[in-house]
């Protein structure tokens, strides 16, 4: 699993990369009340805003961590945004991306580096 400085996690699953936000991020956000997902099939470029999540406190963007195509989105999250707080590392993934250049993963932190990053 890899981690971005934007507190996203990336997990390789076959030829796709699953993207969610970390436990730390979900705690910092507070109760999530709204999730807007991208459309499946959308071509995205790295660092482009692809999702919006809103908590009781504020709105935040989720960035595409890699170039590629949105292959699948976690539709049920829209009706159950609270899952982002309950199960951020597994069930509340946001989207699966079909990367055009998997080597972009190398830019990101591993788990120990992320732990150091959040202190």
């Amino acid at each position: 699993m890899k981690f971005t400085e934007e507190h996203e996690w990336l997990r390789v699953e076959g030829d796709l990369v699953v993207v969610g936000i970390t436990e730390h991020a979900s705690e910092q956000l507070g109760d999530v009340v709204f999730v807007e997902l991208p459309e499946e099939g959308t071509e995205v470029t790295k660092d482009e805003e692809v999702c919006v999540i809103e908590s009781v406190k504020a709105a935040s963007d989720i960035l595409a961590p890699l170039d590629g195509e949105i292959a699948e989105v976690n539709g049920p999250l829209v009706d159950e945004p609270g899952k982002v707080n309950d199960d951020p590392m597994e069930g509340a993934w946001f989207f699966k991306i079909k990367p055009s250049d998997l080597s972009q993963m190398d830019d990101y932190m591993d788990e120990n580096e992320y732990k150091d990053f959040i202190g």
Partner: protein
Amino acid sequence: MGELNRTPLYDLHVALGAKMVPFAGYDMPVQYALGVMKEHLHCRAQAGLFDVSHMGQVILRGDSYDAVARAFETLVPMDVLGLGEGRQRYGLFTNEGGGIEDDLMFANRGDHLFVVVNAACKDADIARMKSALEPAVSVEVITDRALIALQGPAAETALARMNDAVAEMTFMDVATIELAGAECWVSRSGYTGEDGYEISIPATQAEAVTKALLDMDEVEPIGLGARDSLRLEAGLCLYGNDIDATTSPIEAGLIWAIQKVRRADGDRAGGFPGADRIFGDLAEGVARKRVGLVPQGRAPMRAGTPIFASAEGGEAIGEVTSGGFGPTFEGPVAMGYVGAAQAAVGTELFGEVRGKRMPVTVAKMPLVPANFKR
């Protein structure tokens, strides 16, 4: 930024694991372990305890209550003289332009007037009162007392365990009541739309009284985050967001707060700052009005969201001044100003969120029914 002030309950907040944030010059709890959503729901279901010691507490004294009341009426368009002993009322400091300088609570405590003002405005409010009222009326700023609020349907049960005299009070009553040996100034009021109390406690005894309440099963500590969503659902204004120096009480829908005796045809008409504009607004109507707004989708519309009359084109006809998610309402809630022509309940409007116009409906406030003990 200078050093943040701390309330007498600061150590308790930290011990309770609160997340502390700067607010109006104070280091204040924004949430505790439960989090904003659960704190909000707990307050509506049971009882929530809030530290509001950052607010300004002021005592005004003169030759008599009546003398103080007449002087205070030069600053607020409220009936102060006619307020009964042991009763509290909502008020507004107005300016010469008829805008609102702050909102406040004032109480007739027999030989004096007790005033509670917003933290962010308190220095200006105190200066305003001193300049207008002294020397005939003394302005005593109370710095050695904490202020807490206990709000929710179980507030009476909880507080009555410490002194059952509080159960006799009705909405907007004030009384001096002993709690755990402390002389407390209690009012039956709050900022959540729920029944409850606001309690001024000597600073040295504040932690003991607060802990005694928090030890009760019904009571959980509630931070500023849930305080904001509770008051928003209740349709209550946040000074600086929903009312400010440019909004008249009439635009803000606060006509009810100006008693008849102070209006144009009343016995003590006018005599407060901005009376001309406020009477003009009352007689001729206003161009914009504060309304409740219910976004029809799931996306919250936050403060600053522009409001349009149609899905495409046209200029903005208003703006959200407070908005977020209503845990009890179970959806996004907001309030803001729209043109008078668009202010009728049920009017379909559009709020622009991230460049997209989303439907929003003008709704009657409060969005969650109030639950006061009248």
